[in-house]
């Protein structure tokens, strides 16, 4: 093969950005299948809508910024943002919620900072938090898992619900929606119920919320695949899970009557999605080895703090964004020692 580089090294390894993104999407497959199984096919509709919107917005922004379309549309980063946000949104999120979120993520959180590689905050999480603050009702309307639902939604019903805001039965969303296990745990502990009593309810499964525990475990499985394929390193997920685990272990052993178990926290809400797919976003996470451990632990601790003492049922998105802000500082103070230095 003839040389194209002007200076050494003339070889290049097999690693490519697009390949990273494709493997990341592949690792999400098992958990997405579980999502469909437990909450119906609506997540696929939202995901398709999100991907189309993301690619379109990306193309418009690239055009406006006079950047070439080909390498950036195919790098996969916009698709990953879209898929991650779609997974994080509630199953029956109306179409405009998805569109607003994606457009904001791509324009404001990504391109206004300079596009791929330059954004200080995770675009999917910026969009998620924007939507959560602006549309709290729509963002917290979750479905119960299908087996608990009185009338599970099929594909066309979900389609109708997302695009028209109406159920085929003519009933309102509130008739079929319910709290997430994380939410239920929080409100009922607030009502002075004992966590062990709360988790006896049908909403809960063996380890944490019914359905949620399996989904979390499958995210972890996908994460393990990414670590095995060296798409991500183990430092951030392990540090985040350890951080979350240790703080919940402390509070749980001190006050078991008012706190959920560490295992519950590990397998609820966005814990595993956050640990393996969100906090590991290389662009917005710390880059040094020690820094990654600090970053991950910070996300874990903040997630717990926001979940338990904050105003929102889940805290992964906030925790990630707060730690994103600290990245330059963390990186600066965790530089490795140079050879012979």
């Amino acid at each position, binding site marked *: 093969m003839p040389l194209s580089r002007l200076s050494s090294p003339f070889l290049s390894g097999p690693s490519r950005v697009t390949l990273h993104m494709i493997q990341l999407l592949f690792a999400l497959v098992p958990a997405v299948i579980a999502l469909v199984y437990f909450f119906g096919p609506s997540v696929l509709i939202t995901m398709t809508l999100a991907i189309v919107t993301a690619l379109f917005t990306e193309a418009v922004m690239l055009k406006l910024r006079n950047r070439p379309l080909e390498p950036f549309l195919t790098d996969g980063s916009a698709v990953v943002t879209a898929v991650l946000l779609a997974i994080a949104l509630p199953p029956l999120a109306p179409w405009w919620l998805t569109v607003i979120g994606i457009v904001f993520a791509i324009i404001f959180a990504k391109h206004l900072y300079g596009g791929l*590689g330059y954004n200080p905050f995770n675009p999917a999480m910026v969009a998620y938090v924007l939507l959560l603050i602006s549309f709290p009702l729509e963002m917290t309307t979750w479905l119960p898992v299908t087996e608990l639902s009185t009338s599970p939604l099929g594909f066309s019903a979900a389609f109708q619900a997302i695009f028209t805001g109406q159920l085929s039965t003519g009933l309102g969303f509130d008739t079929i929606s319910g709290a997430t296990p994380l939410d239920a745990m929080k409100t009922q502990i607030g009502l002075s119920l004992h966590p062990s009593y709360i988790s006896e309810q049908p909403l809960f499964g063996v380890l944490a919320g019914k359905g949620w525990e399996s989904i979390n475990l499958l995210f972890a499985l996908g994460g393990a695949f990414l670590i095995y394929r060296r798409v991500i390193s183990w430092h951030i997920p392990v540090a985040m899970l350890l951080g979350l685990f240790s703080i919940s272990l402390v509070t749980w052993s001190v006050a078991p009557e008012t706190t959920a178990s560490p295992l519950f926290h590990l397998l609820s809400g966005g814990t595993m999605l956050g640990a393996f797919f969100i906090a590991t976003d290389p662009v917005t996470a710390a880059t040094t080895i020690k820094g990654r451990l600090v970053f991950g632990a910070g996300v874990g601790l903040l997630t717990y703090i926001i979940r338990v003492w904050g105003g929102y049922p889940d805290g992964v998105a906030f925790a990630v964004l707060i730690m994103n802000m600290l990245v330059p500082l963390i990186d600066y103070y965790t530089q490795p020692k140079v*050879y012979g230095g």
Partner: protein
Amino acid sequence: MTKPLGSFPGGLVLDGQKKRSTHVSIRKTPLSKTLILPLQQHIGEASTPIVKVGDTVLKGQKIARAEGHVSVYLHAPSSGVITAIDDQAIPHPSGLSALCITIKTDSEDRWIDLQETPDFTRLSEHDIRHKIREAGIVGLGGAGFPSFIKLNPGVHHHVETLIINGVECEPYITCDDMIMRERADGILDGIEIMRYALRVQNCVIVIEDNKPEAISAMELALKRRQSQFQNTSIVIIPTRYPTGSEKQLIQVVTGKQVPSHGLPIDIGIVCHNVGTSYAIGRAIIHGEPLISRIVTVTGTDVKHAGNFETLLGTPMHELLSFCETQRETDEPFILGGPMMGYNLSGDHLPITKTANCILVGVDNAAPKREPLPCIRCGDCATACPVSLLPQQLYWYSRSKDLEKTREYNLFDCIECGCCSYVCPSEIPLVHYFRFAKTETMTQELETEKADTARLRHENRLERHEAEKKEKEERQRQRKLALAATKAAKEKAEAEKANASESSTDNQET
């Protein structure tokens, strides 16, 4: 055989591609009609010619002498006539020209009288270093640092271990591998001499485990001469790039790190390459100066790849056509390895003392694409053998924040290329680092120049001031003197007048 004691972070396991050029033994390159010898084939001062155009020279005759301390001699690689001493293109990344001596060979290849010294212990350490310098020997691993300097520990250092580098970690290159396979005894001769010159007992020969033939050849040679090599052992290390780099090698073998901005000698270690060792053996025992080296010619476009004992100054195209290379005119090729070599496009350049490999065509060449932006994945930091943060350095090099690049230890970068290799965005990181390094050095030079200029200017002003003062002082003095003489004159005149008056008075009386 001993085990390595340490390891270094990062590094790469690369496809060695060594078999391409190891299936045939070392062959001799046919004598070229002309030999072009750059006067600078080493680190330090260029040598000074001691021949004139038209002089007839013999093979091995000195044609240029060392200039200053960090310099060596240069010899005629074959007999013939000096036809030119002028500027010619030399193998250099920037396509520089430099002063070269051109010899038209007479195909007789007549040697000078060689001074053999079978028993080198008759010589003093100083004499040995002197002879090595006179033989023009420099580090043949690629850097080209004059070897005699590295054999002089000085009074302040004590050498504990001599490390012989037979690692050859870059893909494709096999000249060290082949010299170990075929000339193990010659290498041991050199080791004996170096141990004597350095007054060191312990010596380790380090070879990567992807060279089993070289390992057994060296072991066999060592066993045969067991009595002389009591404290010499072979260390087999795992194949990992860039273990062959001096500092990384020391870390692997001894577990110790050379201090930043320091030298191996600071921790009692001296490293020499196997090829250099062989050359030293030839120079001292057989009296042969360094006039040839082994060059690997290999690559995907080379039909008969192999290793060639080539006279210095042989134009590369002769070597390339001898190996039947399919290469378009002006197609760039690599001098050195694919990770750290540099590309050349002109093939009329001569082989020099540091030319270990000519590589035409590589597998997995970096593609010709615009790199994507850095996604801060940190793979570069994981791969870096000196624990730098390449992505930060890249950021600051790009924004020309040279201050920051220094803070992030830019000058500890060994330019091994691991970071560029693993980068998923295909950013030529090392390219940026080289740029930042030269830019910093230029800036320093400029500052230095500006400082000198300022100092000179200030001195000049001071001098002018002093001159002015002196002038004024002189003027004042002169004025005073003038006034004094005037006064004296007046006084004298007045006295004269007085006197004449009195005399007339007297006369009158």
